[in-house]
């Protein structure tokens, strides 16, 4: 292997093949090149690799919670068919009781959303809601947290807003259809879930007035 070919191989990342090692074994210059190329590779590995932030790692681990999508075995398919025949269409819809619980659990599992962050820019909020096909006609004020999260294994927009010392969580859930609006109260939190296009939106806060206000704003300012 001539010098040019050796350099070409080494600089395209081939630092461990038998041919390259053989070419380096009898040539001190090649050997030195190879060692230096390996050092560069190590440095590239170290610099390119980033640690996953802990909140993101926790979110990723929570994705399978609840509504699992399993590798469906034949028995499970058969069981589902029998189940749906027996129980009927109603049971195939998300249970009205389980969605509030999933929302509350999600907020509890993501306390960072309630932390008093400074307000995000409207562009940043718009960018996040756009990810799932939503858009605000007028900017939503005082949004301190905006993220795409997994709720029952489905992507949702999760926003947190602050107003008069209270925090409200707003979820835009394109894959959670709902026939009728639903109000609930659990663990000192008030919530309202509204049908929204093919999906739904949920507002949750410890302040019932804020829930109503944010629900109104969401219906008025959100474009699907």
């Amino acid at each position: 292997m001539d010098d040019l070919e050796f350099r070409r191989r080494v600089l395209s990342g081939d630092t461990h093949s038998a041919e390259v090692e053989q070419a380096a074994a009898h040539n001190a210059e090649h050997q030195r090149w190879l060692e230096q190329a390996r050092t560069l590779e190590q440095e590239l590995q170290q610099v390119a690799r980033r640690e996953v932030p802990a909140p993101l790692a926790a979110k990723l681990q929570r994705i399978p919670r609840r509504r699992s999508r399993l590798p469906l075995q034949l028995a499970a398919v058969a069981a589902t068919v029998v189940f749906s025949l027996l129980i009927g269409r109603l049971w195939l819809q998300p249970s009205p009781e389980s969605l509030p619980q999933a929302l509350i659990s999600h907020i509890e599992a993501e306390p960072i959303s309630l932390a008093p962050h400074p307000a995000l820019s409207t562009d940043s909020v718009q960018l996040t809601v756009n990810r799932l096909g939503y858009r605000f006609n007028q900017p939503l004020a005082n949004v301190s947290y905006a993220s795409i999260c997994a709720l029952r294994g489905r992507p949702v927009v999760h926003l947190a807003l602050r107003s008069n010392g209270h925090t409200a969580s707003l979820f835009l859930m394109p894959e959670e259809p709902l026939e009728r609006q639903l109000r609930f109260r659990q663990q000192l939190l008030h919530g309202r879930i509204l049908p929204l296009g093919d999906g739904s939106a949920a507002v949750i806060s410890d302040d019932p007035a804020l829930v109503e206000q944010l629900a109104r704003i969401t219906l008025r300012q959100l474009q699907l």
Partner: protein
Amino acid sequence: MGILEIFRWRSRSRFEQLVEQHSAPIYSYAIWLTGDRCRAEDLVQEVFIRAWQHFNQLQEPKACRSWLLTILRREHLRWLAKQANGHNEVSLTREQADPTTLDEQLQRDQLQQAILALEPGYLEPILLQVLGGYSISEISGELGLSESAVQSRLYRARQQLLRQLAPNQKATRRMG
């Protein structure tokens, strides 16, 4: 515990392993690709949500990283297509694993800047190789380029890195 519960538990356990094993390279790739930490986090979540939704198709452990990276690239391209004004507003912050010395910090910063300065088209092949462990042939398949083009881009990318690194860098002390 019923049969479904057992399947569910096993699937979750396998998914947790998948996250543990691949989240760092996928996140790293996303952050270099987007140049934006928030965007990278969103992207990684979308990738793993999709991975969970299609988990039953992910039976071959060796194919997992390739599958995840393909989803990542596809989602990123879809996002770019939606953004009329393009991207590449690289605002990558310095957030390296704790280097032991100031000298190492300096070297890493220089290498990071050199990577960010790579010409378009050179970054992805080198990321696929360094973070994804792809061979030249696999990069060729992923990016739709000939193997010789991939080899050439990898070669030129490293040449660019070496040119841009300061002469006191460890790897470039004598190579340049």
